């Protein structure tokens, strides 16, 4: 009996030692790893951080384990070269990280790598890989960002005034605002058009999605306060114009580089008559690649500060978007389509950066999001999505919003006008 018990106890102890020790699994907030001695160490830390913290492993087809096996020896070779007294060329390092990141799905992603042992002529040069930018530039309708909207809008106004349209008001400007001690600029054009039939169309072009921080400054006498006045005029023109005089609304998000998610409260919430779920988000809950939280609905509520029930009044709301509408610049038309039945989108399939981010300083939120040194870019800085978003049941990261009516600038010599013409045609005939 005793012998049997002893044998059983020994077997039990033997099995107890069979649990394996995990590898070192970093989470992306471990900024103490920013100083590296070797290229292998730098690569390994970034590889592990992306493995644990990348939000799109469910849709991204990159074989991340194969990346490790393929590239580790090449970084080790760089270390050997450095050990022999040679510096490492920028191009060599760029080619390696381009090979790793260039096909990834996250269209917000921006990878900044510091060359830790640079060739003297390359000193201070940072590797920059933007997989979204690379993919977008290969689309057959790709066209560079239209940079002179002021000139284009002016020539458009000149042209249409000869066609029976009237410009009742035109306010524009570039406005500065501060968020967490960082200064940013946003440009707006608010135009109140009058159609040949006498009805009105309030139009707004915005270079980025900064409605929320700007309109909060209404009346404070700052540059942002001036911008807020412009936005207030656009919203008042929508809410205060009698129905028979209001032909429709135009929000021009072409070239909109993104910004604040809370803008949805104004650009959609102002026209809602009940709360609407416009998208769902989830985040990396653990370090496993497919270890996600549950999907959480994101609701927009009616915003009574500026309010008009455009669905009940059947007022058309046209949103223009193009290949350079990025992030909130494209999430706005996406969500507006979901929330409001009179929304109609015109332009080009958008950029495809459809999932929200938080600043790298919010690294403790979950296992995803931007990480590294976003201030000095020491070691590395990886700008990547904090959440994965699903709109209308689909993950559209890397795909973007496809408008109801496709009008490509590329088919019109890059002209700014045909998409606007399409918007006025739609509203006139609505």
């Amino acid at each position, binding site marked *: 009996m005793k012998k049997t018990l002893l*044998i059983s106890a020994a077997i039990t102890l033997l099995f107890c030692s069979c*649990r*394996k*020790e995990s590898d070192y699994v970093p989470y992306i907030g471990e900024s103490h790893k920013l100083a590296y001695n070797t290229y292998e160490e730098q690569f390994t830390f970034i590889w592990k951080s992306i493995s644990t913290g990348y939000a799109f492993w469910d849709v991204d087809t990159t074989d991340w384990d194969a990346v490790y096996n393929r590239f580790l020896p090449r970084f080790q070779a760089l270390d050997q070269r450095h050990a022999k007294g040679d510096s490492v060329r920028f191009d060599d390092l760029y080619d390696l990280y381009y090979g790793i990141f260039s096909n990834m799905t996250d269209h917000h992603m921006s990878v900044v790598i510091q060359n830790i042992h640079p060739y003297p002529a390359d000193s201070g040069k940072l590797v920059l890989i933007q997989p979204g930018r690379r993919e977008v530039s290969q689309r057959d309708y790709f066209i560079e960002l239209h940079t002179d909207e002021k000139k284009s809008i002016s020539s458009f106004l000149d042209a249409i005034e000869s066609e029976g349209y009237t410009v009742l008001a035109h306010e524009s400007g570039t406005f500065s605002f501060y968020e967490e001690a960082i200064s940013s600029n946003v440009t707006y054009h608010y135009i109140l058009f009058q159609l040949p039939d006498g009805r009105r169309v309030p139009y707004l072009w915005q270079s980025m999605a900064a409605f929320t921080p700007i309109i909060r400054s209404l009346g404070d006498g700052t540059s942002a306060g001036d911008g807020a006045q412009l936005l207030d005029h656009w919203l008042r023109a929508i809410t205060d114009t009698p129905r028979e005089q209001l032909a429709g609304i135009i929000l021009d998000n072409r070239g909109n580089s993104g910004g*604040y998610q*809370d803008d949805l409260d104004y650009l959609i919430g102002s026209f809602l008559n009940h709360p609407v779920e416009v998208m769902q988000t989830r985040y990396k*809950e653990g370090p496993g690649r497919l270890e996600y939280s549950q999907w959480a609905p994101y609701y927009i509520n009616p915003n009574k500060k500026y309010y008009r029930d455009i669905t009940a009044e059947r007022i058309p709301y046209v949103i223009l978007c193009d290949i350079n509408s990025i992030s909130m610049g494209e999430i706005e038309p996406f969500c507006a389509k979901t929330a409001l039945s009179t929304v109609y989108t015109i332009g080009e399939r958008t950029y495809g950066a459809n999932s929200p981010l938080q600043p790298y300083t919010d690294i*403790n939120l979950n296992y995803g999001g931007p990480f590294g040194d976003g201030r000095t870019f020491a070691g590395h800085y990886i700008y990547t999505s904090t959440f994965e978003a699903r709109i209308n049941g689909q993950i559209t990261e890397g795909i973007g919003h496809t408008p109801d009516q496709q009008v490509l600038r590329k088919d019109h010599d890059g002209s700014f006008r045909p998409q606007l013409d399409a918007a006025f045609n739609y509203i006139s005939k609505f």
Partner: protein
Amino acid sequence: MKRILFLFLLCLLQQTAVAQWSLGVHGGANSTSITRSHADRVDETYSSLCGFDLGINGRYTINPWLSLRADLSLMQRNHRLQRHLNYLSPVHTDHRNTYLTLPLMVDFSFGGSKLKGHLLLGGYCGYWMGQRVSGTTYTMSDYYVFFVDFNERRDFTREDRRFNAGLSGGVALSYTLADNIALSLDALYYYDLLSHHKGYLNLQDYRYLNTLSVTLGISYQFTKKEQQ
């Protein structure tokens, strides 16, 4: 495991006493904790949750102090992940896992003719049948955090290892009510040796479950057969 089976076979061959079968049912509650790597975020803790344990068991008595016991149990093995970051403190996920578990244990018994004590040692294999999660998650905008309650089935992914195995053992008390009927109170511990997270080639992150299960059972003794 092989050694335990070998010992058992030896005992079978040498037996001179009465061998008999019994079959029983048991049910009770358990508490499960998770053993994970130190990858935990600083504001994240894991804790135990209770679950149920229902099943049938069979016993083959080799001699008055030695028998072999096999169970087939439907067990919940539940645990909780809780965030503590100040503005995310409501966020938590209760993992409710259902396992079909098949422990096979050697039962050393001692005591009187009616009231007996038992020491059980062995191993188990199991299958992860389903998982359900409930709790509170969050979504956020630039200025606001929104908390959302959830309670839903979670699909398995390629990271989940559904086959499960480990060590089991514990103590039990049994009381014979009549010739063929016995009551038992079992306290069994299940110790995973297989991680339910598969991990990756260069990034293994093992997760093991530990379950203490307390059940009440009743068994019926079927046959009484003389053996050589």
